[in-house]
């Protein structure tokens, strides 16, 4: 959708007043962040009075499944970000094992994130942002069969990010920590709420990234997940990533993701690749 607009409309280049890499990458739910969690940073490089937009694509290759995500995020004034992501989760070998009626699950995620106060680099306080996501699971037959209660839900998160200059051997370190209030099963791909638990949980998430220079980062992420469905366990997620920001228009993130048990199949650990173009 955004791509079509980009090709047909005269795409005026936005101002990019923020420092490189401070827009983060695109998380799998569309919000600016790392890979599996949003950070308090806002997408793109707009400062006060400026705007920005990005398109991204992400592919996660797991032993029994694949996840593909495409989306976009627009931002204004380093204050507010709106994002959209479409996720497609291919069920792979599980389709034949369980004779499933569908071979993939898809979900749409609309997000808004607002920077409440603080700054990633400057000012006294860390950057703190509040986000809300509306998620809609599009193929509810399988989630319903395994006990999910609803195909759409709203969840919120509060997150803080701060760059500590020269914190580790003289290199800059970005620390992110947040809490999410959600009842999404496997981020919503398996619906929301379940037979075991149908109320939202407070879930912790965080990451640490080391910047070798303004263009290269390595880090780890962690995301706590609920366990609402009795048919299978749901694992907390973690990943270790390398991020490359050659300029303010392109970023690439490569990661090793440990997603654990997903829908009865354990050890879903694999590679994650995400590419973003920012305008």
């Amino acid at each position, binding site marked *: 959708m955004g791509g079509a607009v980009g090709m047909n409309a005269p795409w005026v280049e936005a*101002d*990019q*007043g*923020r*420092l*490189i890499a401070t827009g983060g990458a695109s998380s799998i739910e569309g919000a600016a962040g790392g890979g599996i969690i949003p950070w308090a940073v806002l997408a793109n490089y707009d*400062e*006060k*009075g*400026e705007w920005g937009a990005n398109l991204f694509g992400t592919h996660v290759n797991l032993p029994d499944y694949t996840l593909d995500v495409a989306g976009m995020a627009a931002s204004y004034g*380093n204050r507010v970000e709106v994002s959209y992501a479409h996720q497609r989760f291919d069920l792979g070998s599980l389709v034949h094992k369980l004779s499933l009626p569908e071979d993939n699950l898809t979900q749409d995620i609309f997000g808004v994130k607002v920077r409440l106060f603080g700054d990633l*680099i*400057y000012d006294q306080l860390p950057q703190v942002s509040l986000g809300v996501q509306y998620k809609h699971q599009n193929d509810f037959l399988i989630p319903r069969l395994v006990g999910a209660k609803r195909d759409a839900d709203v969840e919120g998160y509060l997150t803080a990010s701060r760059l500590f*200059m*020269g914190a580790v*051997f*003289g*290199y*800059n370190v970005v620390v992110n920590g947040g809490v999410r209030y959600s009842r999404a099963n496997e981020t919503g791909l398996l619906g929301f709420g379940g037979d075991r638990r149908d109320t939202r949980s407070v879930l912790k998430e965080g990451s640490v990234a080391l910047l*070798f*220079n*303004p263009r290269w980062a390595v880090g780890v992420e962690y995301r706590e997940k609920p366990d609402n469905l009795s048919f299978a366990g749901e694992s907390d997620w973690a990943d270790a990533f390398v991020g490359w920001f050659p300029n303010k228009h392109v970023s690439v993130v490569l990661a090793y993701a440990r997603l654990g048990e997903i829908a009865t199949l354990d050890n879903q650990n694999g590679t994650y690749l995400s590419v973003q173009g920012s305008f």
Partner: protein
Amino acid sequence: MIRVLQWIGALSLALLAGCAQQPPKDDSLYRALGERAGIQKIVEGMLLHIAKDDRIYKYFAKVDIVRVRDKLVEKFCVEAGGPCTYTGDTLAEAHKGMNISRGDFNALVENLIDSMDDQHIPVPTQNRLIARLAPQRGDVIEK
């Protein structure tokens, strides 16, 4: 007499404590940047990058660039712990009425990093200088 001696003793202790609180000046960053000559190269390189930067060249177009260079060298030298005295205006005074934006400030940081890269200053050393300058953003922007 004893009271006077006690008083002098207490005063001496206080003075000693006062001295102990003032650590010996750390000039390791100054030396890592190549002392005065290295800092001058960094500042001159930064100004050359700024001259090619459409975002902020306008702020430097009509200034006495030699004076700006000299004052920036003094400023960086002092911030790096070097044996210099900053003789320029305060940052707030120097930027008054210029209405420098956050983006303009970051553009200057980028030009400084480019110049330090040109001079092969290691990233941890670059970070130390930027960490000294970043807290002063409030005296520069939106004045």
